[in-house]
């Protein structure tokens, strides 16, 4: 990535030293996957473009997509918890480094 900073007169905030947390952590990767799953599932239209099996009279096409609403919420909550953990770790590392 080319440098993306125009020169500024004010000094850039010193990036905190100490034990740096790498940009790619297991938490971030897992969160990314959790967010990707519902998107892929919904864009793969041919996987659910059919009427059978119906549930309680509702064709597959409809109940399957409705089911994905709460399922996607579960994945997003998982991503939220993972990112929260990651940010806490980062904050702790920054604090530790600043002392």
């Amino acid at each position, binding site marked *: 990535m080319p440098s993306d900073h*125009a020169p500024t007169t004010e000094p850039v905030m010193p*990036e905190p030293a100490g034990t740096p947390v790498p940009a790619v952590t297991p938490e971030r990767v897992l969160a990314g996957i959790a967010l990707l799953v519902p998107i892929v599932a*919904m864009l793969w239209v041919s996987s659910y473009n059919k009427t059978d099996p119906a549930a*309680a*009279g509702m064709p597959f096409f409809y109940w399957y*997509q*409705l089911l994905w609403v709460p399922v*996607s919420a579960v994945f997003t*909550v998982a991503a939220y918890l993972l990112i*929260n953990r990651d940010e806490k770790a980062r904050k702790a590392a920054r604090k530790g480094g600043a002392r």
Partner: protein
Amino acid sequence: MTGVNVPALVVFVLFFLLVTVMGFLASRWRRAGDAAHLDEWGLGGRSFGTWVTWFLLGGDLYTAYTFVAVPAAVYATGAAGFFAVPYTIVAYPLVFLFLPRLWSVSRVHGYVTPADFVRGRYGSRPLSLVVALTGILATMPYIALQLVGIQAVLDVLGVGGGENANWFVKDLPLFLAFGVLAAYTYSSGLRAPALIAFVKDALVYIVIIVAVIYIPIRLGGYGHIFDTAAQHFKQTRAGSLTLPANKEWTYATLGIGSAMALFMYPHSVTGVLASKSRNTVRRNMAIMPAYSLMLGLLALLGFMAIAAGVGSGVKGYNSQLSVPQLFANMFPDWFTGVAFAAIGIGALVPAAIMSIAAANLFTRNVYKEWLKPAATPADETRVAKLVSLLVKVGALVFVLGMDRQAAINLQLLGGLWILQTFVAIVGGLFTRWFHHWALFAGWAAGMVYGTWKAYGIASPATKHFGGNAAEIPGIGEIGYIGLTAFALNLIVSVVLTLVLRAAKAPVGQDETRPSDYSAEAGDEERENAPEPVAAH
């Protein structure tokens, strides 16, 4: 229309009076800080917690027009109209990635609009201006469509007036509703829709839950409803219960394209920036799907309207009336009133937020940036309040002066247009690599291509702008024009950035720092942040 439904009308008017009182009282709700600052009127003091934000965003994104149009599309076309469901499923995981960054950088630098961010990030006034104008342009027809939603309800209530009614009598209820809305938005700002959203969402949830349980019981169960719908589509050939194979691409591209466009709309951004912390934003992305579930159930009402025989045998039946008519046929009169109040108030909340968002854009990115750079925060607030009135009058004139079809066409175009700001805004949240003139050219290419393609689509209802899908060049499938235009936009932006970088073209000043994008409320970075520069 046969006479006025008096019990329903009484209930409707009572709810309307309730929210009117709430709208005016809202100015005293959680008041803090400097009332003359645009943050107060235009963003509710940036103070809303998780639940208020949830109600506000729900009230903001799931509009009256959605309630009327989504089931209407299912009523008219079957499976193809159901795309609203995958659209809202995809939207939250997608925006989870970038909205927290937008919130943080806006908090640190005091940005009120997405165009403020573009101005600060790229240091480019022209790019910021086109982002602002695109936002205003896309929002205006959206406000007009909220009126269409109210009109549909008033028509079915029997107070919309007949064809032969005097135009003034016919539109008087609409004038009243909008006059009142304009007045309390003016006095209370974003606090009014935030407070009213509680009533709106509660009503909507009650109505939907009752509808999806009670109506199928009366119609003989979901099995019967879908069987009837299948037969109906077989006879009319108007739609189908599953997608024809050549429509799968359209379905997927409409879903993802609309999801990307959703949080580019100024009123969505206003809702997000009004929240008090970065974590509030994230938490909301996880709990917003409750509304999507409601929307999915609501879409099924289109099939119920078919099964109940709404509009059957009427040539050229306006499908927009199908769900209000279904409610009127199925529910006892008083509950019809509750259902219509849900739709009517469902129009007022987003219309208020949209007019505030458009007013913020005009004030910050046109008035202050180009017309009166010396404007004080108090000036900004005054101008924004006035513009919010103008925007509403404009929407009213639009609906009364032009035909309804024009508003629907323009709203479809609005989605396509607003999507063209995605590269500049979301790209900018992650990298400063793009050159601002390349983004400008990409935006222009996307706008021109999308509008031109949409112009060429005819439908039975209209000669131009009759749809939103066309063949994707190079792929050969039929896809959402907005997404194709976005792809073109991205390609132009990347290629021109490479060229401009190679030519060492000058870049504007970036006033943001990497740490701004992850700042949380109460962080040291925030407290130490320099006074906003581009936020003038």
